[in-house]
Structure formats: structure tokens, C-alpha cells
């Protein structure tokens, strides 16, 4: 605990020192931010950032719930989860765009041009199917061969490298937009927000509630929690561990795809590596909430989202991801099991 506090102080001093070396321009904007924070404009900025943080946190939660469930049921830190987020958004773009699309290595082009309300559910369905395929041809095989967890983790890293470059190869290096219309922002008190973002929030909350209902109230969900708690014991009491894990993979892929689609709407476009960039945030959220704890991902995501967005009030915006990663490192120092995780020996 003392060690942790000391590292925190050293890190804080270090970052402050580095930032103050960064130039007087930075210092000027910082003092400006501090002075404006005292006025009502500053409070508005804070509330707006808080709100943005909650939106981002909800979208992050959609993506990271699956990561946490996979970790809980199999013990795998899945580094290829970020690509599932990108894939969901990209396949939706593939189905919805009026432009000609093609598959890699196939020389012909065609247009799908489905309406967005049809393309998005289809995208999620395809992503869910991909989750099934992934578990069928890779992960269940590795489990059957009793490949060590660290090896599986490196396999997921290889898969992530392959998928992200495949998506770049397929869709090109430039960000794509799922819908072409611009979402006008409206003012609600101190918060300005567009309708699409509000609808996205509602969808995210409904999806997260559905996951909670599934885990808490259905037989399958209870079985999932049992596997997550103790796979051997669950197997001994007659739960088919492998089919539960298959369902978890499908659910994780589907939720990640939904998160990806909403993220693409929220930030008005998605690039081939956006999911990959998001992966560190997801790990931060999942670790913060408690690795493998089903609701930990939600709590962690909201905290990470709010911290990342609110930090931009004081710190330069291009450091918001670095701030969130800093939080992850500090959490590991103080409470490695996360907020909701149970204390256990982890090393």
C-alpha cells in the first residue's frame, strides 16, 4: 500500500515535470483551464465531459463485458477482442454502404446497400457467428489439446495481428462512416448531445440490462456464472462446460460488434485499428472492475470512460488514453483483484 502510494506520487511528479517542460504554451492553456473551471463555463465543461465519459463508458462496457466473460470462463486474456469490435462495425459498413465493395483476392465488385436498420442486426449476427466459428476452430481445439494459457494468450495476439491487418487489407486504411447523415447536436441544460448518441445510450443500457438478466435469471446464465466461478466443480455438477464457453464466445463477439457499431456512430466513423486501440481501454476496465467478474467490466468501463473524458478538462486531450492506462497501473498496485474481484493470491 505504501509502495503503491509512493509510485503514484513519483509518477504524478514525473508527469507534471515532463508536461511543464513541454513549453510555456501548455502552461498557459492549463492556467486558462483552471481559471475557466472556476466560472460557470468551466462547470458546464466538466458536466459535458462527465456526460461524454458516461457515453464512452457504456460503449466500452458493451465491448469489455465479453472480454471479462471469456476471461472468467476460460482464463484467457483475449488480445483479439478489439478486432471483434472493429469487425462488427466494418461488416455493417460492408452491408450498408451504397459504394461498391469486394472481398480480398476476389477481383469482382458488387453493392449490397442494405438500409442501416437491417445491416446493423445482420452485422451483429455475422459477428456472433464468427464468435462461434472462432471457438469451434481455434479455442476449443486448444482447450482440447490442453495448450497452456500463456500459449493461448500468444495465439490470441497472433490472431489479433492477423485480423487487424486483414481488416485493413479488406476495407482499406481510411476510416469509414456507417451512416452519411450528420447527427445535429441539441442542447439539454449544460449538455449538448445528438439524437443518435441518445439512442445509442439507450440501446447500450438495454443490452447491458439484458446481459445482467441473462446472467442472473436464466438457467444458462446461472450455469455461466457457475463455470466462471469454478469450471471443474461446474463440470462435476453436470454443466456442459464446453457448450457454455461456446455461448460465451458468441455472446462476447455479438456484444463487441454492437459496441463497435455504436462506437462508429458515436465517433462518426471507424478505422481499421480503432478496436485495436480500444483493447487497452477494455483491459484497463476489466482489470479495474475485477478480472472475470461479470459486473466488474461495467463498473470498470464507466470509471475508465469518465476518467478519460474528464481528464481532458485539465490534461491535453491527446493524453486521455495515457491517463486511463495510468489508472490501470495504479489499480494494479493498490488492488490487483480489482474493485469487485475477491481478494486472492495472484502471484
Amino acid at each position, binding site marked *: 500500500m505504501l*509502495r*503503491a502510494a509512493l*509510485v503514484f506520487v*513519483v*509518477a504524478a511528479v514525473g508527469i507534471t515535470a*515532463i*508536461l511543464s*517542460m*513541454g*513549453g510555456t504554451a*501548455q502552461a498557459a492553456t492549463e492556467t486558462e483551464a483552471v481559471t475557466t473551471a472556476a466560472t460557470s463555463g468551466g462547470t458546464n465543461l466538466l458536466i459535458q465531459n462527465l456526460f461524454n465519459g458516461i457515453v464512452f463508458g457504456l460503449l466500452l462496457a458493451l465491448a469489455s463485458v465479453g472480454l471479462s466473460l471469456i476471461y472468467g470462463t476460460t482464463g484467457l*486474456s483475449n488480445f483479439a477482442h478489439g478486432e471483434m469490435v472493429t469487425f462488427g462495425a466494418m461488416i455493417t459498413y460492408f452491408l450498408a454502404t451504397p459504394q461498391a465493395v469486394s472481398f*480480398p*483476392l476476389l*477481383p469482382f465488385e458488387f453493392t449490397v446497400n442494405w438500409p442501416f436498420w437491417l445491416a446493423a442486426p445482420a452485422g451483429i449476427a455475422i459477428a456472433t457467428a464468427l464468435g462461434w466459428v472462432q471457438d469451434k476452430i*481455434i479455442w476449443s481445439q*486448444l482447450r482440447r*489439446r490442453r*495448450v*497452456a*494459457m*500463456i*500459449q493461448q*494468450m*500468444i*495465439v490470441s*495476439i*497472433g*490472431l*489479433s*495481428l*492477423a*485480423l487487424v*491487418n*486483414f481488416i*485493413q*487489407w479488406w476495407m482499406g*486504411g481510411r476510416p469509414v462512416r456507417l451512416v452519411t447523415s450528420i447527427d445535429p447536436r441539441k442542447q439539454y441544460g449544460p449538455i449538448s448531445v445528438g439524437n443518435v448518441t441518445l439512442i445509442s445510450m439507450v440501446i447500450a443500457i438495454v443490452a447491458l440490462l439484458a446481459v445482467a438478466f441473462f446472467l442472473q435469471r436464466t438457467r444458462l446464465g446461472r450455469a455461466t456464472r457457475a463455470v466462471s466461478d469454478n469450471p471443474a466443480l461446474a463440470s462435476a455438477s453436470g454443466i456442459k462446460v464446453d457448450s457454455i464457453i461456446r455461448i460465451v464466445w458468441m455472446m462476447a463477439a455479438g456484444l463487441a460488434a454492437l459496441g463497435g457499431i455504436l462506437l462508429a456512430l458515436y465517433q462518426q466513423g471507424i478505422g481499421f485499428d480503432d478496436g*485495436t486501440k480500444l483493447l*487497452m481501454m477494455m*483491459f*484497463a476496465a476489466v*482489470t479495474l472492475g475485477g478480472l472475470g467478474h461479470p459486473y466488474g467490466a461495467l463498473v470498470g468501463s464507466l470509471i475508465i470512460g469518465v476518467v478519460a473524458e474528464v481528464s481532458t478538462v485539465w490534461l*491535453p486531450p*491527446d*493524453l486521455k*488514453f*495515457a491517463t486511463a*492506462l*495510468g489508472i*490501470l*497501473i495504479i489499480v*494494479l*498496485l493498490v488492488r*490487483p483483484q480489482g474493485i469487485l474481484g475477491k481478494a486472492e493470491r*495472484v*502471484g
Partner: protein
Amino acid sequence: MDILFDVLRTAIAPSTAAFALAAIGLNFHFGLTGLLNMGQAGFMLLGMYGFAISIQQGWPIWVAILVGLAAAAIFAVLLGWPTLKLRGDYLAIVTIAAAEMVRFLGRSQSLAGLTGASSGIRGSDYKAPFEELSPFPDAIVNIGPFSMHGSRSSSWWLTTVTWAIVLLCAGLFWRLANSPWGRVLKGIREDEDAVRSLGKNVYSYKMQALIIGGVIGALGGITWALGNSVQPDSMGRPTTFWLWTLLLLGGAATVFGPVLGSILFWSSLTLVKSLASAFIPSDVLAPTELEPFSLVLVGVTLMLLVVFRPQGVLGNKKELAF
């Protein structure tokens, strides 16, 4: 024939040597001690920044090198301090997060005065002191089929120096791995608790391994920067993953595994790219798609390697952390 020369040129290029160096560092972490360092690119980047920024401040070259190495050593201490007591995958997540933090800080506009933000530091701003030391002529020199500049950038001078450092570090690895110290590290890799019960301070040994590997990684970063430029985005997560691929390809826990791995990795990447551009028509695979296409192959190679031949070309299956 041209393709063959391209491949050979890649095999001896200074960048290949730089990656071999960073992989030797990773070999100290993973091969010898079993530490899952997923942020080796961060160590390389810190070495590059330390070196380039010190030269820009007008410090002599040996001070600059020391600054680069010291930055990596401090980074290793800060990372290892909290995480070396936790389970292995925590170190993986923290190192990858910390390496990304270094990259984000390097990219950040607020430090543009020192790091040049996302455009980085141009090679001409820091390469001069090293190039002035060159005994080679200041012109293009042809040796056999290879044509490189004598002293500038990716030169014969840099090639000689980097491969000499690679040999030195490989020798250092061989010496240390066979010393009593190295045997303790191997013991930690096999069974941490057994070593602890023998009264060894496991934490301190792991820390030493992390620092040595990180410093060698920084050396790799410095030599890489001397052939290219300091660019934060060139040292992102993919770089670390490539390092893992080539280390596992050559064979972890072996002396020449990282060196062979680096040569094989970069040569086959060049081979695949040139074969693809020569034989696959460009309406099937456009030139811009070559890079992602070859990296898909790298990812698949990594997956297959880990599952089917985790010991790589030279390694011994018993000598693996997993």
C-alpha cells in the same frame, strides 16, 4: 535473381540487427526467466528518445547512449516494482499498457518541443555524431552485389557496428545464461516456488533480468533509430508482436535463436512481398495491400508457431516457460 539479392540485403540490414538486439533482450525476459514482457517496443522507444534528445541537447554521443539505456533501466524498475510479485499475465497487461503510454506521451502535442510529437525526430537531427565516427568513405560503396553508403544512415558503418553489438550481446547472453546467476533465472522460469524455497530472492532476480533485457532492448532501439528516424508510431504494439514472433521463430532460450529469428523473419517478409508483387497480378492484390497481406501471414505464423512448434527452429521444448 533480384529477389534473392533483395532478401540477402534485408538479411544483413542494420534494422534486422536492431530487431535481433531487441529480441535478445526479450530472450532475457521470456526465454531465460519466463517473464511475459509485452512492451519491448516501449523499451526500444525510450532508448531512441533518450539518445536522440540528448544528442539534440548537444551532449557527446557516449552520454547520449547512456541516457537512452538509463531511461530503459528506470522504466524497467518502475514496471517491475509493482508487477513482478503478481501473476504473469498481469506483467503482460502492465507492460503493454506502459509501452502504449510511452508512445502516447511521445505523440502528445504537449511534449512537441522535445519529441516532435507524432512526426517524431528527423534522422538528420541526431545521426551526425555517430556518422562522424565512421572509418568508411563518405560515398556509396559496392561490395559484391550489395550497394550501401559508407557512412550515412543505413550504411556499411552502421551495419558493422550493429552486428558487432549483436554478437557481443549474444555472447553476453551465453555467458550469463550459463553462469550460476543464469541457472537461478532458469529455475525461476521452471518453478518459482522451488527457487524461493532455496532461499533465493526471486523478486530481485526477476528485476535484474527485466532491467538487463530492457537495456538491451533500448540498445536495439538506438541502433534502429540510427538507420531510420525516431517515430513513435513505428514502435507500437505490432513491433512488440513481431519481436515475439521472431523470438519464437528462432527459438526462445537459445543464444542464436533471436538472431536467426530476426534474419528469417525479415528475409521471409521481403521474400513474400517481392514474390507476391512479382506473381500476383495487381488487380487481385494492389501494391498498397501487400503490407497488410504480409502482416496477416505474420499473425498466422505466430499462431501456428506457438501451437505446433513453440520451441522454434533452434529451441528445446524443455526450455520453455510454457
